[in-house]
């Protein structure tokens, strides 16, 4: 890493760490929600961008993790960390079952199946109001009893760093290679000796467990949990974040989630028109930058490198 890049990274890290003291409580809430969406979007990118399993039910696992932890803590009296760990495990196990169930499904069939699963879970959460509180919401024990939300920000940041680190490690290991091989061509992957069934189930389980963990964090932060967290609207937002950022790169997906979440709030004065803007942005991204706007921007930066090198005047050789 060059000194300028190192200095830039250090400055960015300082800004992120100082974020809670630099902004008012409203924008701190937006920052915490952006972190939540970043974990969800990165895990969806792992599933869709790397392994090619187009799930439209990812928010169902977020919702499952959220209700699992909330209910275990409030009804069973378990400590919050145990509740969050249980959310991670439950979402992972159910993700594996869903992954196994739809082994023979691809593309739109897989998307419809997973969306149906998510909707079924949302309707159950809505209907079983004696357990879940239904549309009125479930009161969830907060993680921290502080006046400031800063502890949530730092915990969220730690969860994001850990999730991203683990997922990045996976994508650069042989597992990542197998995920991409399955995305490219399942038949060829099987002929090359890749255990396609095992890795398809595995990627569903891993992505769902991160979604469940994010859901548990969200539940203990937001305080009142409603079934809407697993709605199709929310899933659409995550898709938009991943597509605009770049679904085939975890950091791009994370940045996409953060940028979109902040833009959604910054443009709130425009009401529903801001959603039209995001719809248009999504269409343009899919049409002109299928790897995401950030990936496109990064490519431009990489291309500019040699251009700058060429544009730099050549040093005259020292006179001998």
């Amino acid at each position: 890493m060059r000194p300028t890049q190192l200095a830039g990274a250090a400055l960015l890290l300082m800004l992120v760490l100082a974020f809670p003291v630099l902004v008012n409580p409203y924008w701190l809430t937006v920052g915490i929600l952006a972190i939540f969406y970043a974990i969800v979007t990165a895990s969806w990118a792992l599933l869709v961008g790397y392994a090619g399993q187009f799930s439209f039910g990812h928010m169902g696992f977020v919702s499952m993790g959220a209700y699992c932890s909330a209910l275990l803590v409030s009804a069973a009296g378990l400590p919050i960390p145990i509740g969050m760990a249980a959310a991670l495990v439950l979402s992972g196990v159910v993700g594996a079952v869903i992954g196994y169930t739809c082994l023979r499904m691809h593309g739109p069939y897989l998307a419809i199946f997973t969306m149906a699963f998510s909707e079924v879970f949302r309707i159950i959460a809505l209907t079983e109001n004696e357990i879940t509180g239904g549309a009125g919401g479930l009161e969830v024990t907060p993680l921290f009893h502080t006046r400031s939300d800063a502890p949530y920000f730092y915990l969220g940041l730690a969860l994001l760093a850990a999730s991203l680190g683990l997922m990045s490690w996976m994508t650069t290991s042989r597992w990542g290679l197998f995920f991409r091989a399955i995305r490219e061509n399942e038949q060829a992957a099987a002929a090359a000796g890749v255990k396609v069934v095992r890795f398809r189930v595995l990627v569903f389980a891993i992505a769902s467990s991160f979604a469940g963990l994010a859901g548990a964090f969200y539940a203990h932060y937001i305080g009142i949990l409603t079934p809407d967290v697993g709605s199709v609207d929310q899933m659409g937002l995550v898709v938009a974040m991943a597509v605009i950022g770049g679904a085939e790169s975890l950091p791009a997906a994370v940045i996409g989630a953060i940028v979109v979440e902040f833009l959604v709030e910054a443009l709130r004065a425009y009401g529903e028109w801001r959603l039209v803007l995001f719809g248009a942005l999504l269409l343009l991204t899919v049409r002109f930058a299928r790897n995401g706007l950030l990936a496109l921007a990064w490519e431009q930066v990489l291309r500019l490198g040699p251009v700058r090198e060429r544009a730099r005047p050549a040093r005259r050789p020292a006179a001998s």
Partner: protein
Amino acid sequence: MTGLIEAVDLTLRFGGIVAVRGLHFAVREGELVGLIGPNGSGKTTTINMLTGHLSPGSGHIMLRGARVEGMSADRFAARGVGRTFQVTQLFSRMSVLENMLVPGLARPHSTHVAARRQARLHLEFLGLAALEDLPARSLSGGQQKLLELGRALMLEPSILFLDEPFAGVNPYLRDEIIRLVQALHAEGRTFVIVDHDLEAIQRLVQRLVVMSRGEKIADGTVDAVREDAEVIRAYSGV
């Protein structure tokens, strides 16, 4: 006859159509066998069954004396059964080297260093070493066929099924593929080659198996098969 791989009374139906009927077919260690027949005779279906991509409706597949029918394709690959496809199937957006590393790292106890070294050796052998960083989709059709062969070689297969390796390949590359297969065969590898290019097949193989309408109609040396009345009838349609 027992062999390295053996089809015993294999039958497969797709709905009302019998794709392969009562096929008996064995390949011995170190053989180079050609599997030919008119379009729709069941050659690719046979290869798909013998490599685990299709499960036979009835009959057995014996690999080194053990029954393996119904196993998944990856388990066939793990047992040393490699293949290429009629229409080249690559990991298009992955690099040439990554295409090679997938089977290399799928093998148990493999390491990145060993897989990379082995991949580069095979790429050198196939004449693709200079292209290792390119995406597979950017290769020419012939180079893609070679890469697919290289990917199968990464399994260190005991038997290789090549499905139409000469289809859509220019004469120069066809000769190159023949040379490579001959070199690999000389090292002791076993091959089953399906193709319509009879001239190329006859240059390569020691034994020909002929299929027509899902059944084996001839099995013998190239000269014997060429004279076989049923084979002439199947090809001429008379």
